[in-house]
């Protein structure tokens, strides 16, 4: 237990737009331990998927700075040939959109077989097929022999996602990265997929990075949570602390904006303004300050760093100390229209 599997240090992933580089992932540091689910939460454009792709080395045209240590080895610096030995083997990835992650011209069984063949060329064809059938059974696909021969378009969304998961876990990865694995799935299917990921983690003691925008999924699954806003991590804490004692204004606002059973029928909290685009990110100071204009400028740090306010609980910037919701001051809900 508590064995460190992945350590990311000061990772910055930048994309070139016209003649400049813009950081989609900006100075991110985090760790993932064995047998742990770390959730990365953020809205679209927060850089959470760019982070996942960086870990797997899937960006082709990005500039990547910083280090990604997997079991002590810096995989960000590895040449593709060496990285390919890890990817699909010790590192597994579940992609968001199963339809674009699967080859439409290949039966799904062969697609799973491919990853086994690639990393274990000595396994006999018969053995390989047996392994694929086992995997299909493991991810909960009924009639695996029949499904083996089907093309992706012949399967439903939930079934396709299971195939993507089967590919990701075919070689029993030690680290599993799941990028929005249940977005666009129905609740009952979502639950089955989440249970599957949880069971796989328990069986193999793998570390899991779960990327999602859904706080409900986080509450169900995560051991620890990192909240991302505009490319940066703004808060990291264990799940209990994050849900009961969140400090960063962004985390607190997000938690207030979801309809929950407790606050039924009341107004939801709305975060003012919009997420700045990659090119318009404020390069100086707290990135969330434009969304909370009623908080005094002096509350923010000039160079916001991460502060450890309790063991394992990190918050960016000092603005959390003086943050309050606008209606706490004015007594009454306010919103965009007047």
């Amino acid at each position, binding site marked *: 237990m508590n064995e460190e599997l992945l350590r990311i240090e000061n990772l910055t992933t930048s994309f070139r737009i016209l003649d400049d580089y813009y950081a989609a992932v900006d100075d991110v540091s985090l760790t993932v331990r064995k047998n742990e689910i770390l959730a990365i939460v953020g809205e679209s454009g927060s850089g959470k998927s760019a982070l996942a792709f960086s870990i797997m080395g899937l960006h082709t045209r990005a500039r990547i700075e910083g280090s990604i240590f997997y079991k002590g080895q810096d995989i960000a610096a590895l040449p593709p040939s060496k990285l390919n030995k890890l990817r699909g083997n010790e590192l597994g990835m579940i992609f968001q959109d199963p339809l674009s992650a699967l080859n439409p011209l290949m039966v799904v069984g062969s697609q799973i077989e491919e990853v086994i063949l690639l990393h274990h060329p000595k396994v006999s064809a018969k053995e390989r097929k047996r392994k694929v059938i086992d995997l299909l059974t493991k991810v909960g696909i009924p009639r695996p022999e029949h499904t083996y021969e089907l093309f992706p378009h012949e399967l439903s969304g939930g079934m396709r996602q299971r195939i993507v998961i089967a590919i990701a876990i075919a070689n029993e990865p030690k680290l599993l990265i799941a990028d929005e694995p249940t977005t666009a799935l129905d609740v009952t299917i979502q639950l089955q997929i989440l249970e599957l990921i949880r069971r796989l983690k328990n069986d193999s003691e793998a570390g899991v990075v779960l990327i999602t925008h859904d706080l409900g999924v986080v509450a169900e699954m995560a051991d620890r949570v990192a909240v991302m806003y505009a490319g940066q991590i703004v808060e990291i804490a264990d799940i209990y602390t994050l849900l009961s004692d969140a400090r960063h204004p962004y985390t607190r606002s997000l938690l207030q904006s*979801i*309809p929950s059973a407790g606050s039924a029928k009341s107004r939801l909290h709305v975060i003012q303004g919009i997420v700045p685009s990659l090119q318009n990110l404020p390069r100086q100071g707290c990135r969330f300050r434009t969304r909370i204009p009623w908080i005094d400028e002096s509350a923010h740090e000039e160079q916001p760093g991460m502060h450890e306010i309790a063991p394992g609980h990190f918050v960016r910037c000092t603005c959390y100390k003086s943050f309050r919701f606008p209606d706490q001051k004015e007594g009454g809900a306010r919103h965009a229209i007047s």
Partner: protein
Amino acid sequence: MPFLEVQDLKVHFPVRGGIFNRKLRSIKAVDGIRLAIEQGQTYGLVGESGSGKTTTGRAIIGLNPITSGTVLFEGKPILGGGVRSRPGFRRDIQMIFQDPYSSLNPKKRVLDIVAEPLRNFEKLSAQEERRRVQQLLEQVGLSPETIHKYPHEFSGGQRQRIGIARAIALKPKLIIADEPVSALDVSVQAQVLNFLKDIQKQLKLTYLFISHDLGIIRHMCDHIGIMYKGRYVEQGTTADIFENPQHIYTKRLITAIPDMDPSKRERLIKFREAVKAEYEQAYEQYFDEEGLAYPLRPVSKTHLAALPEKG
């Protein structure tokens, strides 16, 4: 008299094939739905993908041809029962679409998008039209100067509000909202949901709210209907459905909602396993040979469930 009443609505799509492209069989997307909404209320239609909830919404507004059944609006039939179309009902019923990226024409300016319903039904001078559009944009919280912009210049939440401005342009009485926030981020979702509640009060709107997200349905709706394979499995007030679900399918849906309290995880896993086991065991009892729900029978005054006949 209910404001909107749907009686025994059926929408069947033919499956054609063979040599003469004959009708081989039909897909019963909506198979006998009845619902009634009172003015000023929000009625939620819930179901998983393929349950027929969107088809129901589209059929009520006339976007899908109905196979049989009647739709009564303010007591008068608008669809079905030999009525082709009551002129003017299209003014009173409007729709908000799911995807704000594909429901706005990318080649049109905001002015033209929002003015389109006005141009269809009202003869306004260019100046009046412009003023109306600016008012509408202000009403949805967008700056009136944006009328010359194109949809791609807006964020997802703003686009959805342009769609809402278009929907309320003719002062409709009923709005059918088909998954209006499912393509939006959580914080933007909150903005649109709050806004829908505000204009409901201001304009005395009635909503038919279609969603697969039970958290949002619970937040927004007064009455709920749960669909499965084109039929209702349960119908009732929000309290009936969430606090006293009768049908095994409803129970399973509700227990699948993610819980925000991580300390309940272990208990929840066990509870869900029990519900799942009950579901699998009782499936044949709750659904007929074709896997369809039985007719609804009353549980209480407001609450109906598709329970099997006793004995």
